[in-house]
Protein backbone atom coordinates (compact mmCIF):
# COMPACT_ATOMS: atom_id res chain seq x y z
CA UNK A 1 0.00 0.00 0.00
CA UNK A 2 1.35 3.38 -0.93
CA UNK A 3 -0.19 5.09 2.01
CA UNK A 4 2.51 5.21 4.68
CA UNK A 5 4.89 7.00 2.37
CA UNK A 6 2.30 9.62 1.73
CA UNK A 7 1.76 10.13 5.39
CA UNK A 8 5.34 10.94 6.09
CA UNK A 9 5.61 14.22 7.95
CA UNK A 10 7.93 16.45 9.89
CA UNK A 11 5.94 16.91 13.02
CA UNK A 12 2.47 18.13 12.25
CA UNK A 13 0.31 16.03 10.02
CA UNK A 14 -0.74 18.88 7.84
CA UNK A 15 2.43 20.78 6.98
CA UNK A 16 4.65 19.15 4.43
CA UNK A 17 5.20 18.85 0.76
CA UNK A 18 5.78 15.28 -0.30
CA UNK A 19 2.86 13.81 -2.16
CA UNK A 20 4.37 10.77 -3.66
CA UNK A 21 2.53 8.17 -1.70
CA UNK A 22 -0.87 9.61 -2.22
CA UNK A 23 -0.11 10.27 -5.84
CA UNK A 24 0.70 6.66 -6.34
CA UNK A 25 -2.60 5.72 -4.90
CA UNK A 26 -4.51 8.23 -6.94
CA UNK A 27 -3.15 7.23 -10.28
CA UNK A 28 -3.11 3.53 -9.92
CA UNK A 29 -0.26 1.18 -10.34
CA UNK A 30 1.14 2.60 -13.58
CA UNK A 31 1.32 6.08 -12.14
CA UNK A 32 3.10 4.74 -9.10
CA UNK A 33 5.84 3.31 -11.27
CA UNK A 34 6.49 6.65 -12.86
CA UNK A 35 6.80 8.36 -9.57
CA UNK A 36 9.57 6.10 -8.51
CA UNK A 37 11.51 7.34 -11.51
CA UNK A 38 11.01 11.03 -11.05
CA UNK A 39 10.07 11.98 -7.53
CA UNK A 40 12.21 15.11 -7.45
CA UNK A 41 10.63 16.72 -10.50
CA UNK A 42 7.23 15.88 -9.24
CA UNK A 43 7.61 17.80 -6.06
CA UNK A 44 7.57 21.43 -7.22
CA UNK A 45 4.52 20.77 -9.30
CA UNK A 46 2.86 19.26 -6.34
CA UNK A 47 3.29 22.46 -4.38
CA UNK A 48 1.25 24.30 -6.95
CA UNK A 49 -1.15 21.49 -7.38
CA UNK A 50 -4.12 23.28 -5.99
CA UNK A 51 -4.16 25.64 -8.96
CA UNK A 52 -5.64 24.49 -12.21
CA UNK A 53 -3.95 21.54 -13.77
CA UNK A 54 -3.66 23.10 -17.21
CA UNK A 55 -1.26 25.77 -15.94
CA UNK A 56 1.43 23.20 -15.41
CA UNK A 57 1.86 22.37 -19.05
CA UNK A 58 5.10 24.29 -19.40
CA UNK A 59 6.77 22.82 -16.37
CA UNK A 60 9.53 20.34 -16.15
CA UNK A 61 7.95 16.94 -15.84
CA UNK A 62 7.08 15.04 -18.94
CA UNK A 63 3.41 14.78 -19.73
CA UNK A 64 3.39 11.19 -18.66
CA UNK A 65 4.36 12.03 -15.14
CA UNK A 66 2.03 14.93 -14.90
CA UNK A 67 -1.01 12.99 -13.76
CA UNK A 68 1.02 11.68 -10.89
CA UNK A 69 2.48 15.03 -9.94
CA UNK A 70 -0.83 16.79 -9.50
CA UNK A 71 -2.84 14.35 -7.54
CA UNK A 72 -4.81 16.59 -5.32
CA UNK A 73 -6.24 18.59 -8.20
CA UNK A 74 -7.13 15.59 -10.23
CA UNK A 75 -9.51 13.27 -8.56
CA UNK A 76 -12.51 14.77 -10.28
CA UNK A 77 -10.83 15.48 -13.64
CA UNK A 78 -9.32 12.53 -15.36
CA UNK A 79 -5.75 13.17 -16.51
CA UNK A 80 -6.12 12.58 -20.20
CA UNK A 81 -8.64 15.32 -21.03
CA UNK A 82 -6.59 17.90 -19.13
CA UNK A 83 -3.68 17.27 -21.42
CA UNK A 84 -5.60 17.22 -24.64
CA UNK A 85 -7.37 20.46 -23.90
CA UNK A 86 -4.30 22.66 -24.15
CA UNK A 87 -1.78 21.33 -26.60
CA UNK A 88 -1.01 18.61 -28.98
CA UNK A 89 -1.92 15.34 -27.43
CA UNK A 90 1.23 13.42 -26.58
CA UNK A 91 0.93 9.74 -27.11
CA UNK A 92 0.85 8.08 -23.81
CA UNK A 93 2.79 4.96 -23.22
CA UNK A 94 0.33 4.06 -20.54
CA UNK A 95 -2.70 2.00 -21.18
CA UNK A 96 -5.68 3.93 -22.38
CA UNK A 97 -7.91 2.52 -19.75
CA UNK A 98 -6.43 4.54 -16.91
CA UNK A 99 -9.29 5.58 -14.74
CA UNK A 100 -8.40 7.57 -11.66
CA UNK A 101 -8.87 5.22 -8.75
CA UNK A 102 -10.26 8.06 -6.76
CA UNK A 103 -13.20 8.42 -9.09
CA UNK A 104 -16.41 7.16 -7.62
CA UNK A 105 -16.92 3.55 -8.58
CA UNK A 106 -19.32 3.05 -11.40
CA UNK A 107 -22.66 2.54 -9.79
CA UNK A 108 -23.48 -1.06 -10.45
CA UNK A 109 -27.08 -2.09 -10.26
CA UNK A 110 -27.65 -3.93 -7.05
CA UNK A 111 -27.68 -7.61 -7.66
CA UNK A 112 -30.86 -8.79 -6.05
CA UNK A 113 -29.49 -12.19 -5.29
CA UNK A 114 -26.32 -10.89 -3.67
CA UNK A 115 -28.35 -8.49 -1.60
CA UNK A 116 -30.57 -11.27 -0.41
CA UNK A 117 -27.62 -13.45 0.50
CA UNK A 118 -26.05 -10.61 2.44
CA UNK A 119 -29.28 -9.89 4.26
CA UNK A 120 -29.74 -13.54 5.03
CA UNK A 121 -26.33 -13.83 6.63
CA UNK A 122 -26.78 -10.58 8.49
CA UNK A 123 -30.02 -11.83 9.96
CA UNK A 124 -28.31 -15.07 11.00
CA UNK A 125 -25.67 -13.14 12.89
CA UNK A 126 -28.32 -10.94 14.40
CA UNK A 127 -30.26 -13.96 15.58
CA UNK A 128 -27.14 -15.38 17.13
CA UNK A 129 -26.46 -12.14 18.97
CA UNK A 130 -29.99 -12.07 20.26
CA UNK A 131 -29.72 -15.58 21.60
CA UNK A 132 -26.44 -14.79 23.31
CA UNK A 133 -28.05 -11.79 24.93
CA UNK A 134 -30.99 -13.92 25.94
CA UNK A 135 -28.70 -16.44 27.61
CA UNK A 136 -26.89 -13.64 29.39
CA UNK A 137 -30.12 -12.20 30.73
CA UNK A 138 -31.29 -15.63 31.78
CA UNK A 139 -28.11 -16.07 33.77
CA UNK A 140 -28.53 -12.68 35.40
CA UNK A 141 -32.06 -13.63 36.39
CA UNK A 142 -31.02 -17.07 37.57
CA UNK A 143 -28.41 -15.51 39.84
CA UNK A 144 -31.28 -14.35 42.02
CA UNK A 145 -33.03 -17.73 41.99
CA UNK A 146 -34.93 -19.18 43.72
CA UNK A 147 -37.39 -16.34 44.06
CA UNK A 148 -39.05 -17.85 47.11
CA UNK A 149 -37.20 -17.61 50.39
CA UNK A 150 -36.34 -20.90 52.14
CA UNK A 151 -37.26 -22.87 49.05
CA UNK A 152 -36.53 -26.56 49.04
CA UNK A 153 -34.33 -27.74 46.17
CA UNK A 154 -36.07 -31.12 46.18
CA UNK A 155 -39.50 -29.52 45.93
CA UNK A 156 -39.06 -26.28 44.00
CA UNK A 157 -42.07 -24.07 43.57
CA UNK A 158 -43.83 -24.73 40.31
CA UNK A 159 -43.40 -21.24 38.93
CA UNK A 160 -39.66 -21.25 39.58
CA UNK A 161 -39.29 -24.66 38.04
CA UNK A 162 -41.25 -23.65 34.97
CA UNK A 163 -39.20 -20.51 34.44
CA UNK A 164 -36.00 -22.39 35.03
CA UNK A 165 -36.91 -24.96 32.42
CA UNK A 166 -37.86 -22.27 29.95
CA UNK A 167 -34.58 -20.50 30.52
CA UNK A 168 -32.70 -23.71 29.89
CA UNK A 169 -33.99 -24.15 26.35
CA UNK A 170 -31.40 -22.03 24.53
CA UNK A 171 -28.61 -23.09 26.87
CA UNK A 172 -25.64 -25.15 25.83
CA UNK A 173 -23.71 -27.17 28.41
CA UNK A 174 -20.99 -24.53 28.37
CA UNK A 175 -23.53 -21.82 29.14
CA UNK A 176 -24.72 -23.94 32.01
CA UNK A 177 -21.16 -24.11 33.30
CA UNK A 178 -21.00 -20.32 33.18
CA UNK A 179 -24.21 -20.17 35.16
CA UNK A 180 -22.70 -22.41 37.84
CA UNK A 181 -19.53 -20.34 37.85
CA UNK A 182 -21.43 -17.09 38.24
CA UNK A 183 -23.56 -18.48 41.03
CA UNK A 184 -20.47 -19.70 42.81
CA UNK A 185 -18.89 -16.28 42.59
CA UNK A 186 -22.04 -14.96 44.20
CA UNK A 187 -21.44 -17.53 46.98
CA UNK A 188 -24.46 -19.63 46.08
CA UNK A 189 -24.94 -23.29 45.37
CA UNK A 190 -24.46 -24.04 41.68
CA UNK A 191 -27.96 -25.49 41.30
CA UNK A 192 -30.21 -22.61 40.35
CA UNK A 193 -33.21 -23.87 42.32
CA UNK A 194 -31.25 -24.19 45.55
CA UNK A 195 -31.23 -21.27 47.98
CA UNK A 196 -28.35 -22.50 50.13
CA UNK A 197 -24.86 -21.04 50.10
CA UNK A 198 -22.17 -23.22 48.59
CA UNK A 199 -20.29 -25.64 50.77
CA UNK A 200 -17.14 -24.47 52.52
CA UNK A 201 -14.08 -26.64 52.24
CA UNK A 202 -12.61 -27.64 55.61
CA UNK A 203 -9.48 -25.57 55.07
CA UNK A 204 -8.29 -22.75 52.82
CA UNK A 205 -5.67 -24.90 51.17
CA UNK A 206 -5.65 -25.04 47.39
CA UNK A 207 -5.86 -28.83 47.27
CA UNK A 208 -8.00 -30.90 49.56
CA UNK A 209 -8.07 -34.53 50.60
CA UNK A 210 -11.36 -36.25 49.98
CA UNK A 211 -12.36 -39.70 51.16
CA UNK A 212 -13.94 -41.71 48.39
CA UNK A 213 -14.71 -45.38 47.87
CA UNK A 214 -11.46 -45.81 46.03
CA UNK A 215 -9.48 -44.25 48.82
CA UNK A 216 -8.25 -40.75 49.42
CA UNK A 217 -8.26 -38.39 46.48
CA UNK A 218 -6.69 -34.98 46.14
CA UNK A 219 -9.11 -32.47 44.69
CA UNK A 220 -9.00 -28.77 43.93
CA UNK A 221 -10.69 -26.69 46.58
CA UNK A 222 -12.72 -24.99 43.87
CA UNK A 223 -14.30 -28.26 42.87
CA UNK A 224 -15.37 -28.92 46.43
CA UNK A 225 -17.01 -25.54 46.79
CA UNK A 226 -19.39 -25.73 43.85
CA UNK A 227 -22.47 -27.26 45.45
CA UNK A 228 -24.15 -27.15 48.81
CA UNK A 229 -24.49 -30.94 48.86
CA UNK A 230 -23.93 -33.96 46.68
CA UNK A 231 -27.65 -34.20 46.04
CA UNK A 232 -27.68 -30.72 44.60
CA UNK A 233 -24.77 -31.64 42.38
CA UNK A 234 -26.73 -34.62 41.11
CA UNK A 235 -29.81 -32.52 40.46
CA UNK A 236 -27.86 -29.82 38.66
CA UNK A 237 -25.92 -32.23 36.50
CA UNK A 238 -29.14 -34.06 35.70
CA UNK A 239 -30.20 -30.87 33.97
CA UNK A 240 -26.86 -30.36 32.32
CA UNK A 241 -26.80 -33.72 30.57
CA UNK A 242 -30.14 -32.95 28.97
CA UNK A 243 -28.95 -29.73 27.40
CA UNK A 244 -28.50 -29.62 23.67
CA UNK A 245 -24.90 -29.47 22.49
CA UNK A 246 -25.73 -27.58 19.33
CA UNK A 247 -25.90 -23.82 19.76
CA UNK A 248 -29.44 -22.52 19.87
CA UNK A 249 -29.02 -20.47 16.70
CA UNK A 250 -28.13 -23.56 14.71
CA UNK A 251 -30.93 -25.78 15.94
CA UNK A 252 -33.36 -26.75 13.25
CA UNK A 253 -37.05 -27.07 13.63
CA UNK A 254 -39.01 -26.80 16.81
CA UNK A 255 -38.10 -29.93 18.69
CA UNK A 256 -37.15 -28.08 21.84
CA UNK A 257 -36.82 -30.92 24.23
CA UNK A 258 -38.51 -30.54 27.52
CA UNK A 259 -35.96 -30.38 30.29
CA UNK A 260 -36.79 -32.65 33.15
CA UNK A 261 -35.94 -31.81 36.70
CA UNK A 262 -35.06 -34.19 39.45
CA UNK A 263 -37.82 -33.34 41.88
CA UNK A 264 -39.94 -35.13 44.42
CA UNK A 265 -43.16 -33.49 43.37
CA UNK A 266 -43.19 -34.22 39.65
CA UNK A 267 -46.99 -34.18 39.40
CA UNK A 268 -46.95 -30.46 40.11
CA UNK A 269 -44.62 -29.76 37.28
CA UNK A 270 -45.94 -31.97 34.56
CA UNK A 271 -49.19 -30.16 34.01
CA UNK A 272 -47.74 -26.84 34.95
CA UNK A 273 -49.71 -24.10 33.28
CA UNK A 274 -49.26 -20.48 34.29
CA UNK A 275 -52.82 -19.88 35.38
CA UNK A 276 -53.02 -23.03 37.38
CA UNK A 277 -49.99 -21.98 39.35
CA UNK A 278 -51.71 -18.85 40.49
CA UNK A 279 -54.67 -20.87 41.60
CA UNK A 280 -52.45 -23.19 43.51
CA UNK A 281 -51.04 -20.41 45.59
CA UNK A 282 -54.45 -18.89 46.15
CA UNK A 283 -56.51 -21.94 46.93
CA UNK A 284 -55.52 -23.75 50.06
CA UNK A 285 -57.29 -27.07 50.22
CA UNK A 286 -55.74 -29.68 48.00
CA UNK A 287 -58.74 -32.04 47.81
CA UNK A 288 -61.23 -29.83 46.06
CA UNK A 289 -58.44 -28.28 44.06
CA UNK A 290 -57.76 -31.47 42.18
CA UNK A 291 -61.19 -31.75 40.57
CA UNK A 292 -61.51 -28.11 39.76
CA UNK A 293 -58.06 -27.94 38.46
CA UNK A 294 -58.44 -30.44 35.69
CA UNK A 295 -61.31 -28.39 34.28
CA UNK A 296 -59.67 -25.07 34.98
CA UNK A 297 -56.39 -26.19 33.55
CA UNK A 298 -57.96 -27.20 30.27
CA UNK A 299 -59.92 -23.97 30.16
CA UNK A 300 -56.77 -22.05 30.86
CA UNK A 301 -54.91 -23.92 28.21
CA UNK A 302 -56.13 -21.64 25.47
CA UNK A 303 -55.05 -18.56 27.37
CA UNK A 304 -51.68 -20.05 28.01
CA UNK A 305 -51.30 -20.97 24.37
CA UNK A 306 -52.16 -17.41 23.40
CA UNK A 307 -49.49 -16.15 25.77
CA UNK A 308 -47.04 -18.54 24.28
CA UNK A 309 -47.92 -17.35 20.82
CA UNK A 310 -46.98 -13.83 21.84
CA UNK A 311 -43.71 -15.10 23.13
CA UNK A 312 -43.15 -17.08 20.02
CA UNK A 313 -43.60 -13.93 18.01
CA UNK A 314 -40.23 -12.79 19.29
CA UNK A 315 -38.37 -15.52 17.54
CA UNK A 316 -39.84 -15.99 14.14
CA UNK A 317 -38.80 -18.84 11.96
CA UNK A 318 -38.71 -21.30 14.80
CA UNK A 319 -41.51 -23.65 15.49
CA UNK A 320 -42.17 -24.35 19.09
CA UNK A 321 -43.77 -27.40 20.56
CA UNK A 322 -47.17 -25.76 20.68
CA UNK A 323 -47.06 -25.37 16.95
CA UNK A 324 -47.41 -29.04 16.30
CA UNK A 325 -51.15 -28.93 15.80
CA UNK A 326 -50.70 -26.46 12.98
CA UNK A 327 -49.48 -29.24 10.78
CA UNK A 328 -52.69 -30.64 9.41
CA UNK A 329 -51.42 -32.40 6.35
CA UNK A 330 -51.85 -36.14 6.43
CA UNK A 331 -48.85 -38.18 5.57
CA UNK A 332 -49.75 -41.09 3.33
CA UNK A 333 -47.47 -43.90 2.48
CA UNK A 334 -47.10 -44.63 -1.18
CA UNK A 335 -48.12 -48.25 -1.43
CA UNK A 336 -46.86 -50.34 -4.24
CA UNK A 337 -49.52 -51.87 -6.46
CA UNK A 338 -47.69 -55.09 -7.11
CA UNK A 339 -45.75 -57.18 -4.67
CA UNK A 340 -42.04 -56.50 -4.92
CA UNK A 341 -40.19 -58.81 -7.20
CA UNK A 342 -36.69 -59.79 -6.22
CA UNK A 343 -34.14 -58.93 -8.89
CA UNK A 344 -33.39 -61.98 -10.92
CA UNK A 345 -29.88 -62.89 -11.76
CA UNK A 346 -30.83 -64.18 -15.16
CA UNK A 347 -30.84 -60.66 -16.72
CA UNK A 348 -27.34 -59.94 -15.66
CA UNK A 349 -26.01 -63.30 -16.49
CA UNK A 350 -27.67 -63.04 -19.85
CA UNK A 351 -26.26 -61.87 -23.13
CA UNK A 352 -25.10 -58.48 -21.79
CA UNK A 353 -23.15 -59.68 -18.86
CA UNK A 354 -19.98 -60.19 -20.80
CA UNK A 355 -20.07 -56.46 -21.67
CA UNK A 356 -20.22 -55.40 -18.07
CA UNK A 357 -17.11 -54.17 -16.36
CA UNK A 358 -17.58 -54.74 -12.69
CA UNK A 359 -21.32 -54.51 -13.18
CA UNK A 360 -21.18 -51.37 -15.34
CA UNK A 361 -22.09 -51.66 -18.96
CA UNK A 362 -20.19 -49.12 -21.08
CA UNK A 363 -22.25 -46.64 -23.03
CA UNK A 364 -21.30 -48.17 -26.30
CA UNK A 365 -23.19 -51.28 -25.38
CA UNK A 366 -25.86 -49.50 -23.37
CA UNK A 367 -28.52 -49.22 -26.04
CA UNK A 368 -29.07 -52.86 -26.37
CA UNK A 369 -29.05 -53.21 -22.65
CA UNK A 370 -31.70 -50.56 -22.18
CA UNK A 371 -33.97 -52.19 -24.67
CA UNK A 372 -33.75 -55.26 -22.63
CA UNK A 373 -34.69 -53.40 -19.50
CA UNK A 374 -37.60 -51.63 -21.07
CA UNK A 375 -39.09 -54.84 -22.14
CA UNK A 376 -39.54 -55.72 -18.53
CA UNK A 377 -42.12 -53.10 -17.75
CA UNK A 378 -44.13 -53.26 -20.84
CA UNK A 379 -46.53 -50.48 -19.89
CA UNK A 380 -44.35 -47.54 -20.91
CA UNK A 381 -41.75 -48.97 -23.13
CA UNK A 382 -42.66 -46.77 -26.09
CA UNK A 383 -41.77 -43.64 -24.13
CA UNK A 384 -38.20 -44.71 -23.64
CA UNK A 385 -37.29 -45.87 -27.05
CA UNK A 386 -34.88 -43.30 -28.42
CA UNK A 387 -35.76 -41.71 -31.72
Amino acid sequence: MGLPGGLQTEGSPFSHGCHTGVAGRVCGSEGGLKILNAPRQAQPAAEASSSSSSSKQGQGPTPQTEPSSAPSALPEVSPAPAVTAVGMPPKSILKNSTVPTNAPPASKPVNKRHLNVALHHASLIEQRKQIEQQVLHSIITLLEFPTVQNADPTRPSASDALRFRDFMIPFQPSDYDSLIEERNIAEKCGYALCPHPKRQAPSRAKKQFVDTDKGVEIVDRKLLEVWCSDDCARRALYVKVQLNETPAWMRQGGHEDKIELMVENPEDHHKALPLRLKKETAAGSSKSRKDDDIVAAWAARDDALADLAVERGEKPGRLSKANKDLITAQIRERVGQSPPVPPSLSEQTGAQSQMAIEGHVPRINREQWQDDEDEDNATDWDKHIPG
Partner: protein
Amino acid sequence: MEDRESYSPNMIRMWRVYRTAKEMCLDRGYNILEEDTQISLADFASRFAREDGEPDRTRMPFSCVPSPEMLSKYAVTPTAKDPDPQPAIGSIWVEFNQDENVGLKQLRDYMQHLVNGNFYSGIMVCIKPMTGMALRLLRGASGIEEGPKGGVEVFVEQDLLVNITKHELVPKHVLLSKEEKAQLLERYRLRETQLPRIQVTDPVAKYLGLRRGQVVKIIRKSETAGRYASYRWAI
Protein backbone atom coordinates in the same frame (compact mmCIF):
# COMPACT_ATOMS: atom_id res chain seq x y z
CA MET B 1 17.33 -2.47 47.17
CA GLU B 2 17.38 -3.50 50.81
CA ASP B 3 14.26 -1.57 51.62
CA ARG B 4 12.33 -3.58 49.03
CA GLU B 5 12.99 -6.65 51.09
CA SER B 6 10.83 -5.30 53.86
CA TYR B 7 7.68 -5.27 51.72
CA SER B 8 5.64 -8.22 50.67
CA PRO B 9 5.73 -9.19 46.99
CA ASN B 10 2.04 -8.44 46.72
CA MET B 11 2.69 -4.95 48.01
CA ILE B 12 5.34 -4.31 45.38
CA ARG B 13 3.10 -5.67 42.66
CA MET B 14 0.23 -3.51 43.74
CA TRP B 15 2.48 -0.47 43.90
CA ARG B 16 3.48 -0.97 40.30
CA VAL B 17 -0.09 -1.53 39.20
CA TYR B 18 -1.18 1.62 40.98
CA ARG B 19 1.54 3.69 39.40
CA THR B 20 0.75 2.41 35.93
CA ALA B 21 -2.93 3.12 36.43
CA LYS B 22 -2.09 6.69 37.41
CA GLU B 23 0.26 7.08 34.46
CA MET B 24 -2.40 5.73 32.18
CA CYS B 25 -4.88 8.34 33.34
CA LEU B 26 -2.26 11.04 32.96
CA ASP B 27 -1.42 9.89 29.44
CA ARG B 28 -5.06 9.91 28.49
CA GLY B 29 -5.23 13.53 29.57
CA TYR B 30 -6.92 13.46 32.93
CA ASN B 31 -5.93 15.94 35.57
CA ILE B 32 -3.39 14.12 37.68
CA LEU B 33 -0.41 15.48 39.51
CA GLU B 34 2.86 14.44 38.02
CA GLU B 35 4.22 13.38 41.39
CA ASP B 36 1.24 11.13 41.92
CA THR B 37 2.50 8.89 39.18
CA GLN B 38 5.87 8.66 40.83
CA ILE B 39 4.76 7.72 44.30
CA SER B 40 7.51 5.86 46.08
CA LEU B 41 7.06 2.39 47.44
CA ALA B 42 7.44 3.62 51.00
CA ASP B 43 4.74 6.24 50.54
CA PHE B 44 2.49 3.74 48.88
CA ALA B 45 2.96 1.23 51.65
CA SER B 46 2.24 3.78 54.33
CA ARG B 47 -0.96 4.82 52.61
CA PHE B 48 -2.40 1.50 51.55
CA ALA B 49 -0.91 -1.24 53.72
CA ARG B 50 -2.98 -3.26 56.11
CA GLU B 51 -1.57 -4.44 59.41
CA ASP B 52 -0.50 -7.75 57.90
CA GLY B 53 1.56 -6.00 55.26
CA GLU B 54 -0.75 -6.78 52.35
CA PRO B 55 -2.12 -3.99 50.18
CA ASP B 56 -5.64 -2.85 50.97
CA ARG B 57 -7.37 -2.49 47.62
CA THR B 58 -10.51 -0.96 49.06
CA ARG B 59 -8.63 2.22 49.91
CA MET B 60 -7.01 2.59 46.52
CA PRO B 61 -9.77 3.70 44.15
CA PHE B 62 -9.50 7.21 42.80
CA SER B 63 -11.36 9.41 40.41
CA CYS B 64 -10.13 12.12 38.11
CA VAL B 65 -11.58 14.73 35.81
CA PRO B 66 -10.43 15.45 32.28
CA SER B 67 -8.12 18.37 31.64
CA PRO B 68 -9.19 21.18 29.26
CA GLU B 69 -6.96 19.78 26.51
CA MET B 70 -8.61 16.43 26.84
CA LEU B 71 -12.04 18.02 26.74
CA SER B 72 -11.17 19.78 23.50
CA LYS B 73 -9.80 16.56 22.10
CA TYR B 74 -13.05 14.78 22.72
CA ALA B 75 -15.16 17.72 21.60
CA VAL B 76 -18.10 16.81 19.41
CA THR B 77 -18.71 18.91 16.33
CA PRO B 78 -21.92 20.87 16.73
CA THR B 79 -24.77 20.04 14.42
CA ALA B 80 -27.94 21.83 13.56
CA LYS B 81 -29.88 19.57 15.88
CA ASP B 82 -27.42 19.88 18.74
CA PRO B 83 -25.68 23.26 18.47
CA ASP B 84 -23.81 22.98 21.76
CA PRO B 85 -22.86 19.35 22.32
CA GLN B 86 -21.10 18.05 25.41
CA PRO B 87 -17.65 16.59 24.90
CA ALA B 88 -17.69 12.82 24.82
CA ILE B 89 -15.66 12.47 27.98
CA GLY B 90 -16.11 13.08 31.66
CA SER B 91 -14.91 12.08 35.08
CA ILE B 92 -13.54 8.60 35.48
CA TRP B 93 -13.56 6.22 38.42
CA VAL B 94 -10.71 3.76 38.80
CA GLU B 95 -11.29 0.87 41.13
CA PHE B 96 -9.15 -2.04 42.19
CA ASN B 97 -11.30 -5.05 42.79
CA GLN B 98 -10.26 -7.26 45.66
CA ASP B 99 -12.22 -10.39 44.81
CA GLU B 100 -10.38 -13.39 43.59
CA ASN B 101 -12.94 -14.06 40.89
CA VAL B 102 -14.91 -11.33 39.22
CA GLY B 103 -18.20 -12.24 37.65
CA LEU B 104 -21.44 -10.69 36.59
CA LYS B 105 -22.32 -9.75 40.14
CA GLN B 106 -19.26 -7.60 40.78
CA LEU B 107 -19.40 -6.02 37.34
CA ARG B 108 -23.04 -5.04 37.74
CA ASP B 109 -22.39 -3.65 41.21
CA TYR B 110 -19.55 -1.62 39.77
CA MET B 111 -21.70 -0.29 36.93
CA GLN B 112 -24.39 0.63 39.41
CA HIS B 113 -21.82 2.49 41.47
CA LEU B 114 -20.65 4.43 38.41
CA VAL B 115 -24.18 5.42 37.53
CA ASN B 116 -24.95 6.45 41.10
CA GLY B 117 -21.75 8.45 41.35
CA ASN B 118 -22.49 10.13 38.03
CA PHE B 119 -19.22 9.10 36.47
CA TYR B 120 -18.80 9.16 32.75
CA SER B 121 -16.67 6.06 32.51
CA GLY B 122 -14.83 3.61 34.69
CA ILE B 123 -11.79 1.41 34.85
CA MET B 124 -11.91 -1.79 36.82
CA VAL B 125 -8.68 -3.53 37.69
CA CYS B 126 -9.15 -7.10 38.79
CA ILE B 127 -6.81 -9.75 40.05
CA LYS B 128 -7.76 -12.41 37.54
CA PRO B 129 -9.55 -12.27 34.21
CA MET B 130 -13.29 -11.90 34.39
CA THR B 131 -15.68 -14.68 33.63
CA GLY B 132 -16.86 -15.10 30.08
CA MET B 133 -20.39 -14.01 30.83
CA ALA B 134 -19.16 -10.79 32.42
CA LEU B 135 -17.15 -10.04 29.31
CA ARG B 136 -20.24 -10.74 27.25
CA LEU B 137 -22.13 -8.20 29.32
CA LEU B 138 -19.38 -5.66 28.72
CA ARG B 139 -19.39 -6.31 24.99
CA GLY B 140 -23.09 -6.43 24.45
CA ALA B 141 -25.38 -3.51 24.00
CA SER B 142 -27.13 -4.16 27.28
CA GLY B 143 -24.00 -3.22 29.18
CA ILE B 144 -24.24 0.26 27.78
CA GLU B 145 -27.88 0.57 28.71
CA GLU B 146 -27.43 0.03 32.39
CA GLY B 147 -23.85 1.19 32.73
CA PRO B 148 -22.25 4.61 32.47
CA LYS B 149 -22.20 6.50 29.19
CA GLY B 150 -18.54 6.09 28.48
CA GLY B 151 -18.53 2.39 29.21
CA VAL B 152 -16.39 0.32 31.52
CA GLU B 153 -12.89 -0.85 30.79
CA VAL B 154 -11.47 -3.87 32.53
CA PHE B 155 -7.81 -4.54 33.11
CA VAL B 156 -6.10 -7.45 34.75
CA GLU B 157 -3.48 -6.48 37.31
CA GLN B 158 -0.87 -8.36 35.41
CA ASP B 159 -1.37 -6.15 32.36
CA LEU B 160 -0.59 -3.06 34.38
CA LEU B 161 2.56 -4.27 36.11
CA VAL B 162 4.61 -2.56 33.45
CA ASN B 163 3.76 0.55 31.53
CA ILE B 164 4.02 -0.77 28.00
CA THR B 165 4.22 2.65 26.41
CA LYS B 166 7.56 3.19 28.10
CA HIS B 167 9.07 0.31 26.19
CA GLU B 168 11.58 1.40 23.56
CA LEU B 169 9.87 -0.57 20.82
CA VAL B 170 6.49 1.02 21.41
CA PRO B 171 6.14 4.19 19.32
CA LYS B 172 4.32 7.23 20.53
CA HIS B 173 0.58 7.12 19.96
CA VAL B 174 -1.32 10.39 19.84
CA LEU B 175 -5.06 10.50 19.68
CA LEU B 176 -6.48 12.90 17.09
CA SER B 177 -9.54 14.96 17.84
CA LYS B 178 -12.56 14.85 15.56
CA GLU B 179 -11.46 18.07 13.93
CA GLU B 180 -7.91 16.88 13.36
CA LYS B 181 -9.23 13.68 11.91
CA ALA B 182 -11.41 15.59 9.48
CA GLN B 183 -8.41 17.70 8.47
CA LEU B 184 -6.29 14.63 7.95
CA LEU B 185 -8.87 13.00 5.72
CA GLU B 186 -9.31 16.24 3.83
CA ARG B 187 -5.57 16.71 3.44
CA TYR B 188 -5.01 13.30 1.95
CA ARG B 189 -8.37 13.05 0.25
CA LEU B 190 -9.09 9.82 2.01
CA ARG B 191 -12.11 8.17 3.35
CA GLU B 192 -11.53 6.84 6.83
CA THR B 193 -11.93 3.30 5.59
CA GLN B 194 -8.79 3.81 3.53
CA LEU B 195 -6.63 4.34 6.60
CA PRO B 196 -4.64 1.52 8.11
CA ARG B 197 -6.33 0.18 11.20
CA ILE B 198 -5.71 -0.67 14.78
CA GLN B 199 -7.88 -2.90 16.91
CA VAL B 200 -9.42 -1.44 20.03
CA THR B 201 -8.21 -4.58 21.79
CA ASP B 202 -4.62 -3.72 20.91
CA PRO B 203 -2.63 -3.26 24.14
CA VAL B 204 -1.77 0.35 23.38
CA ALA B 205 -5.31 1.08 22.21
CA LYS B 206 -6.58 -0.32 25.49
CA TYR B 207 -4.05 1.76 27.37
CA LEU B 208 -5.28 4.91 25.66
CA GLY B 209 -8.90 3.87 25.88
CA LEU B 210 -9.45 4.24 22.14
CA ARG B 211 -12.98 3.97 20.90
CA ARG B 212 -14.12 2.70 17.58
CA GLY B 213 -13.79 5.28 14.83
CA GLN B 214 -11.08 7.36 16.45
CA VAL B 215 -7.83 7.95 14.61
CA VAL B 216 -4.49 7.68 16.31
CA LYS B 217 -1.25 9.13 15.03
CA ILE B 218 1.76 6.94 15.53
CA ILE B 219 5.11 8.66 15.53
CA ARG B 220 8.15 6.47 15.41
CA LYS B 221 11.81 6.97 14.85
CA SER B 222 13.09 6.04 11.47
CA GLU B 223 16.69 5.59 10.44
CA THR B 224 16.02 7.02 7.01
CA ALA B 225 13.41 9.64 7.65
CA GLY B 226 14.13 10.81 11.15
CA ARG B 227 10.61 10.75 12.36
CA TYR B 228 7.83 8.96 10.65
CA ALA B 229 4.16 9.35 11.33
CA SER B 230 1.41 7.06 10.33
CA TYR B 231 -2.25 7.08 11.17
CA ARG B 232 -4.46 4.31 12.26
CA TRP B 233 -8.17 4.02 12.50
CA ALA B 234 -9.39 2.27 15.61
CA ILE B 235 -11.76 -0.52 14.80
